[in-house]
Each structure stands twice: as C-alpha cells, then as structure tokens.
C-alpha cells in the first residue's frame, strides 16, 4: 500500500469502474478489535453475535482506498452510509467498490466512490464517499 506519490492516473478513473471486489468474513476477534479501536464498550454486538455495521463500512472503504494510489493531499470531505440489515459474525459477505463520479473543478479533483457490502445478494451496508484531491490531476 503506497500513499506517497501519484502512482495511479486518477484522471483515468471512469464512472462505473470497479475498484475492488472480494469476499469478506468478520470474526468475533476482528469485531472486538474494531469496537476496542473506536472506544465502543457496548456488548450488544458481541452478545448478539452481530457484526458492527460501521466495521463493515470501514473495511469496505479501506479496501477501496487501498486500490487507489491517493496522494498526500487527499481530503475525506463527506460520507453517506445506509444500513439495510444486520448480519451475524462469521458469515460470508461480499464487498465491492466503484467510482461514481470523477471531476475536476477549480484545480481540485473530486472523487465520489460507492462501496457496498452484501450478504447472499442482499445489501447490508451501502456507502458513498466523497474525496477532494489537491493536485490530483
């Protein structure tokens, strides 16, 4: 994972282009690590054996960001999250990330990414991420 430099031609990203797509399984250990990391002491997820939905959104987004070689000037400007259902720990999920929008205005590149986590074809979490990149064009 390289966040330094301009290894990827961001200008070449097209709306609808898939950035990342893979299977995802969240274990209890991973869920607990996430909850500890965000300082959430609630046991509601673990006791119900549920995956924290924010953890899913986070993991899918991180995968999308790793697929891009974003320069140091990248700013996360906005985030939308839609939660559709809860899923149990250990189930097989699938995440996908794609480019929704790629535009340059006033010297800044604006990227909007869509990420989706599904379980057996049904959407679990849907996210839209807005990024602004200085000098990214």
């Amino acid at each position, binding site marked *: 994972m390289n966040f330094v430099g301009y290894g990827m031609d961001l200008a070449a990203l097209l709306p609808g282009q898939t950035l990342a797509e893979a299977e995802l399984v969240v274990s209890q250990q*991973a869920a607990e690590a996430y909850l500890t*990391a965000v300082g*959430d002491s609630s046991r509601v997820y673990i006791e119900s054996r549920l995956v924290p939905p924010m953890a899913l959104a986070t993991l899918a987004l*991180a995968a999308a960001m790793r697929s891009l070689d974003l320069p*140091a000037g990248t700013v996360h*400007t906005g985030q939308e*999250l*839609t939660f559709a259902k809860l899923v149990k720990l250990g189930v097989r999920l699938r995440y996908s990330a794609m480019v929704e929008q790629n535009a340059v205005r006033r010297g800044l590149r604006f990227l909007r990414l869509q990420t989706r986590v599904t379980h057996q074809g049904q959407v679990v979490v849907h996210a839209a991420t807005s990024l602004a990149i200085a000098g990214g064009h």
Partner: protein
Amino acid sequence: MEAPLQVLATVVHSVSQDQLVRYADASGDHNPLHLDPAFAAGTTYGEPIAHGMLVLAFLSEMLVNSFGLRWFDGGKLQVRFRAPVYPGDVVTAGGTLQTQSAEDDWTVYRVACTNQSGVEVITGEARVPRTPRGY
C-alpha cells in the same frame, strides 16, 4: 406512536495517537497521515489526524445508544467532515430532532461531532427508522 427524542444523549471520546494505531490495524487503513508524525508534518495538517470513519463511529455509537440496533435497520447517515481531529482532542457526538412526519417512516436528526473548543468537526443528518423490527 410515542413522541421522538428531542435531544440525543451525547457520547464523548478522548482521541489518542494509540487509538489511531489500533484503528488503523482494525480497519486496514494505514494511511501515514494518521500514523506517521514525520509524514503528517509535511501536510497542511502538520501532525497526524484521526481517520474520518473513526470519528464517524462516535456518531453511530451515539445513535445506537439512543435507538438500539433498529438504527441499523434502514438508518442513514449523511455527513460532511468540517475540521480535522487531532490526538488529544475530546470529541462529543450529539444530535437534535430536526424533522418528524406522521406520514413518513423516518425521524430526522441533525447530528454533529464537536471538539473541546466547540468546533464542529462533523455535521450532518441521521434518518432513523421509526418502526422497530425486533432486533
């Protein structure tokens, strides 16, 4: 139908560099902007800043505390990141009732994360589903 909450109970977190390291490992986001002081010194931020999704997790925690897991049964968050959060900052996540409608299945709250200086670092809206499905 019971009246919706007017003001949501806040959640307060003190952000530390150790937390950013733990979050990086848990999330897979090892952007040096969050972890490497030398790297961050070369950016406009000057020092490491918290992951946006980490601070956003505080908002989600606040919403779960108020509404339980039904928040995730169709709930929607839409936010803008307004200012960076630095290690040492104390962030308060809160929300206030914005709109309610007898016809809609949603209650809408204005939500925000504010630092110890009263600066809103995240602002936005949360749409909370009205009808619980028994999680």
